[in-house]
């Protein structure tokens, strides 16, 4: 399992979903892929397809309209997978927390593994969050194997 475990750490493909973000965090997520930060040097590729993704980046707070979309994307991703919530809104609901339609942070809809705070989160913080998420992929894979045996 050594080579697969090593490859898993070297090749995290990210999928980015914007719940109700103001687009501030989305711009910072895409900034990670520009020549200045070049996330591809870590093997990070932005795929638009949940079936190819390992890491789900969510920005913005969850509300009653997009909760099922978020769940659908999460369920389409093959295991092992990790969810990274980016920005104050995705972590807690942020300034929209008290709105009548907002359900708060993303963790109220799908299990979140890494929280990246900030409004907006800086690209360095986002890359750090993804790297911490990579560290959790292995235990997810072990859980996946244990689950498939049971």
């Amino acid at each position: 399992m050594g080579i697969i475990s090593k490859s898993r750490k070297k090749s995290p493909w990210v999928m980015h979903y914007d719940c109700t973000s103001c687009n501030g965090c989305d711009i910072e997520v895409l900034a990670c892929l520009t020549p200045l930060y070049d996330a591809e040097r870590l093997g990070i590729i932005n795929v638009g397809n949940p079936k190819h993704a390992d890491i789900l980046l969510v920005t913005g707070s969850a509300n009653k309209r997009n909760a099922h979309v978020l769940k659908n994307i999460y369920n389409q991703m093959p295991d092992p997978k990790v969810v990274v919530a980016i920005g104050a809104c995705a972590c807690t609901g942020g300034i929209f927390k008290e709105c009548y339609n907002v359900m708060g942070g993303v963790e109220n809809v799908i299990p979140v593994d890494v929280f990246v705070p900030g409004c907006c989160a800086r690209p360095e913080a986002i890359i750090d969050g993804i790297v911490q998420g990579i560290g959790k992929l292995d235990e997810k894979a072990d859980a996946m194997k244990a689950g498939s045996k049971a």
Partner: protein
Amino acid sequence: MSINNLIIAVIAIIAAPIVGGLLTGIDRKITARMQNRFGPPLLQPFYDFFKLLGKQGIAVNQTQMVYVMGHLFFAVGAFVMLVLKQDLLMLMFILAFSAVSLIMGAMSVRSPYSKIGAQREIMQMMAYEPVLLLMVVGVYKTTGSFMISEIFAHERPLLFSLPLVFLAFLYVLTIKLRKSPFDFSTSHHGHQELIKGLTTEFSGTQLALIELTHWFDLVLLLGLITLFFAQPIWVGILIALASYFCEIVIDNISARVTWQWMVKVTWVAGIGAALVNIVWMYLI
């Protein structure tokens, strides 16, 4: 088939993915440098491949895997025919079967993205298959045989008799490798009009096998370029690598075109150049 041929075939089947993967890694590194980025490590395609093998298997339907296997095995078959210097015409047909398998796999699911990607792939095949067949005709006219071994026995390099066919083949190579400006059946980067086109509904091991087939295809196509300068072989390999570098440059400087444009230009310029070359050989 002697035991010697068997050993050559086995070595080639093991070596081809390694060479293909390394070439893909070099491609990604050069592309990154051209875009002023640092770029992924050289072994990145292998990391991607092994990671995909470790993913959970999600099959949309039961036949999907059969088509992926067909895609792989026909490509391996075509490659073995090249290594053993067999019939060039048969090689082209087997290569077409490999491409058709992938289209069938993409058509077998209900995702509209996958289906549109498959339809565009059919358009690509419609555009490049005539040029490949004309290339085989040109080779037959020059050497008097469809056998690849005859090309190696021919004392004058094919490039001198078939310069326009060679140019048409280079053009077709861009379509076959699905590089920009002809990357519309499976866009190279996410967040585009077809998500991942043809490969949208393939995940995990299936996607890994499609990637493996792509490496075989890459080595096979570069091998076909090498045939144009088979004596001495190292010149042919250098020409193949130079053509691959040209493909990377073209990939980076061009935007995606529409399939209508591709079919028109390939039929007029590609088939035109190849036909002019063959007719000229008849006249002279």
